[in-house]
C-alpha cells in the first residue's frame, strides 16, 4: 500500500497523509452505523422497534440526523469550569482512541504503520484516553464528573494489567509484537488461529482479554465511570453538543479498536477462515471488519443483558480473578512451549 502510494505521489507528506486518513474513512460511517446498530440491537432485545421514522426504511438515517443535531447544539461550558482543559479533553480522548488504528492491519496490504512493536504501541497509546478522561472530569468542576473520572482512571489503569498479560500469551506463541507478523502466522484454515492453539490457555486468555477490554472501553458491566443511575453521566456530565459527540465517538471507536485487536491476535485478523477460499487483500478487509463487528455486537449484547458492578467488585475482578488467571495462562503456555 505504502509502495503503491509512493509510486503515485512521490511525496512523503501525501503518502502518510492518505494512509493516516484511511482509518478515518472507516471510522465515520462505522460510528454512524454502529450507533444505529446499538439502538436496534437494544430495541429488539427489549421487544421494541427502536428508531423507525427518520429516512424511511427502519429509520436508517437516525444517527445522521442526530449528528446534525449535535453539530447545531449550543456548546455549553460551565462558568466554573477550567475552560482550556474542558475544551481539550474530548480531543485528547479521541486522539488516544484514534491513534491506536495506526498499527491495526486492515488487510494484508494495508496497515497504517507496520512497526515491529505494534502491540506495545496499541497498549501504550490507548492509555492516553485516561489523561483525557481525568482532564474532562477535573475541568468540569462537578463532583459527579470528578467521581466518574477518578473511577475511570482507577478502572482503566487496573484493567490494563490483565489486558497486557493476556496479550502476552499470544506474544509468547507468536514471538513477535508486529501485528502483521501475527496475522501471517495464522493464515490458512481457521484451526490455525491462535485461539485454538495450546487449548485451553489461549482461549482463557481471550476471555480475559475480552472482559478486560470491556472495562477499558467503559462498557457495561464495567461502565461505572459513567454509570447513569449513580453518577448521572460521570465525566461527560457537563459536556454538550459536539464535544459530547466526541466522547461518544471515541467510545465507539475504542469499541472497534479493542475488537480489532481481539480479531487480529486471536482470530486470524484479515485471514479467511477457509484457507485460500475468499482470501486476498480486499476479502481480507471484509474478514477483518466482520470479525471486528462480531465482537462489537457481543459487547452490545452484554451491555443490554447485564447490570453493572460496583467499584470494589470491579477491582476484585481485575486483581483477584483476571490477573491471576492471566498469569496462569502465561505459565501454562510457557510450560507447553518448553515441553
Amino acid at each position, binding site marked *: 500500500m505504502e509502495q503503491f502510494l509512493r509510486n503515485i505521489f512521490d511525496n512523503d507528506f501525501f503518502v502518510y497523509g492518505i494512509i493516516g486518513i484511511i482509518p478515518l474513512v472507516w471510522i465515520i460511517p462505522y460510528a454512524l452505523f454502529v450507533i444505529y446498530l446499538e439502538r436496534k440491537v*437494544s430495541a429488539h432485545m427489549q421487544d*421494541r422497534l427502536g428508531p423507525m421514522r427518520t429516512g424511511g426504511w427502519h429509520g436508517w438515517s437516525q444517527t445522521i440526523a442526530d449528528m446534525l443535531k449535535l453539530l447545531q447544539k449550543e456548546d455549553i461550558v460551565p462558568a466554573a469550569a477550567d475552560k482550556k482543559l474542558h475544551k481539550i479533553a474530548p480531543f485528547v480522548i479521541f486522539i488516544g482512541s484514534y491513534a491506536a488504528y495506526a498499527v491495526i492491519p486492515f488487510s494484508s496490504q494495508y496497515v497504517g504503520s507496520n512497526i515491529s512493536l505494534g502491540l506495545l504501541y496499541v497498549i501504550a497509546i490507548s492509555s492516553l484516553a485516561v489523561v483525557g478522561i481525568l482532564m474532562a472530569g477535573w475541568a468540569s468542576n462537578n463532583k459527579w464528573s470528578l*467521581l466518574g473520572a477518578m473511577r475511570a482512571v482507577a478502572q482503566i489503569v487496573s484493567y490494563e494489567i490483565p489486558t497486557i498479560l493476556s496479550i502476552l500469551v499470544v506474544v509468547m506463541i507468536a514471538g513477535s509484537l508486529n501485528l502483521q507478523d501475527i496475522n501471517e502466522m495464522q493464515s490458512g484454515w481457521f484451526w490455525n488461529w491462535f485461539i485454538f492453539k495450546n487449548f485451553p490457555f489461549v482461549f482463557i486468555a481471550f476471555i480475559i482479554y475480552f472482559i478486560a477490554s470491556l472495562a477499558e472501553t467503559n462498557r457495561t*458491566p464495567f461502565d461505572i465511570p459513567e454509570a447513569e443511575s449513580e453518577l448521572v453521566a460521570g465525566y461527560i456530565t457537563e459536556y454538550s453538543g459536539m464535544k459530547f459527540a466526541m466522547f461518544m465517538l471515541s467510545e465507539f471507536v475504542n469499541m472497534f479498536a479493542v475488537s480489532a485487536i481481539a480479531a487480529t491476535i486471536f482470530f486470524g485478523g484479515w485471514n479467511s477462515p477457509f484457507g485460500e477460499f475468499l482470501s486476498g487483500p480486499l476479502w481480507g478487509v471484509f474478514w477483518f471488519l466482520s470479525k471486528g463487528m462480531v465482537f462489537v455486537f457481543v459487547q452490545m449484547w452484554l451491555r443490554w443483558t447485564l*447490570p453493572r*458492578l*460496583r*467499584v470494589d467488585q470491579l477491582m476484585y475482578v481485575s486483581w483477584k480473578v483476571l490477573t491471576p488467571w492471566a498469569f496462569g495462562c502465561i505459565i501454562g503456555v510457557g510450560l507447553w512451549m518448553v515441553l
Partner: protein
Amino acid sequence: MTEILANPLLTSTGRQLRREEVIVNVGPQHPATHGVLRLEAVLDGEIVVDVIPHIGYLHRCFEKHAESMTNYQQVVPYVDRMDYCAAMNMDFGYVLAVEKLLGITVPERVEYIRVIMAELQRIASHLIAAGTYGLDIGAWTPFLYMFRERERILDLFEMTCGARLLYNYMWVGGVSHDLPPGFVDKAKDFCSYFRPKVKEYNDLLSFNDIFVRRTANVGVLPAKTAIAYGCSGPVLRGSGVNFDIRRDDPYSVYNRFEWEPQIGRGERGTTGDCWDRYMVRIREMEQSINIVEQALNQIPGGNVSSAIPKRIRPNPGDVYVRTESARGELGFYIVSDGSGSPYRVKGRSPCFSNLSVIPEISRGCMVADLIAIAGSLDIVLGEVDR
C-alpha cells in the same frame, strides 16, 4: 481556600464536615431517585458517611386539598395521585376508611372486584419497582420486559374504568363501573400468561450473579429497626417479619383466599438486605396472581352500585383504617365534623416511613450502594410528599 478552611462546611443538620469529606447532592434531579428526592450525601471518597434525605419537592398539600373539597367522593382523584404507581390500592384504602366512617357495608361483588383490582395493581406496581430497581443497578432490559407485562394490566384497567393510570374507580360504597363483559376471561388469560414470565425475570435479573452481588448484604435492615422505623410492606417482610395486613388485620374479603405472605430469608446474603426486599416483591407478584385467580373463580353476581350513598355525610368522629398497599401500610386517618366534606384527612403513606430508615441503613456503604438501597425501598415520591 483559606476561607473554606476557616469556616468548615456544615451539613443541613448542623454537623461539621471533616477535611476529607464532601457533600454530594443526589437529586432532586438525578436519574436514580425515582422522582424528586434529594439525598444530601456526605462522602468520604466513595464511602457514604451520612445521608440526609430532603423531601417535599412534590408536596401538593393533599391534605389541605381534601379539606377544601365539597364532598368525600371528590377526594378520590386526589388520592389516586398520591401513589400514582398503585392508584387502585390508594383508592381502596380511602374508600374503606370512609365506608367505616359511614358504617356501610358494600355488596360482595364489589368486594371481589376491589380485591381483583388491588391485586392486579399490586403486580403492576411491583413490576415497576423491580424493573426500576434493575435500572438502578444498571440492567436496562428487564425494566422494559416488566413494562410489557404492566401494559397488559393497564389494558385490563382501561377496559374496566377507562383510565390507565389514575382510575377514580373505587367509590365510597361501590365501584364506578361493573366489570366489562369479557373481563374475567381476559384476566384469567393474563394470569396464565404472567406466571412463566416471572421465571424469565429471575433468570435474567434476580439470580444474575452481578445483580446478586450488588444487592445481597447491602443495606441490611434488621427486623427490629424495621419495626421501630415503622417500615411496612415488602420492606418489612424483606427483613424477615412475617406480617401482612391482608392476613393479620384482614379487611375486605382477603381472609377467603389461600396465599402465603413472602418474607426475606437471607438466601443470598443477610436477612433484610436489598436482594431480599427485591425478591419479596417478585414472589409477591406470584401470590397476587393466586389471589386474583381465586377471586375470579369465586366472584359472585350482583349490583355494584346499590350501596353507593346519595349523600355522604358521616356522623362526627374519626377513624383510622389501614390497608396493605403495594408499598406497605397505607393508613387513612379521617376526621369528620358531620358536614359533607372531610374535616381532616391524613394519609399515612408507607413510603414516608420506609424512606425515613435510609440514613440508618446506608451509613458506611458506597455511593453505588446508596442508589441500590434507595431503589430497594421502592419509594414513590408522590406518596412521600403527598
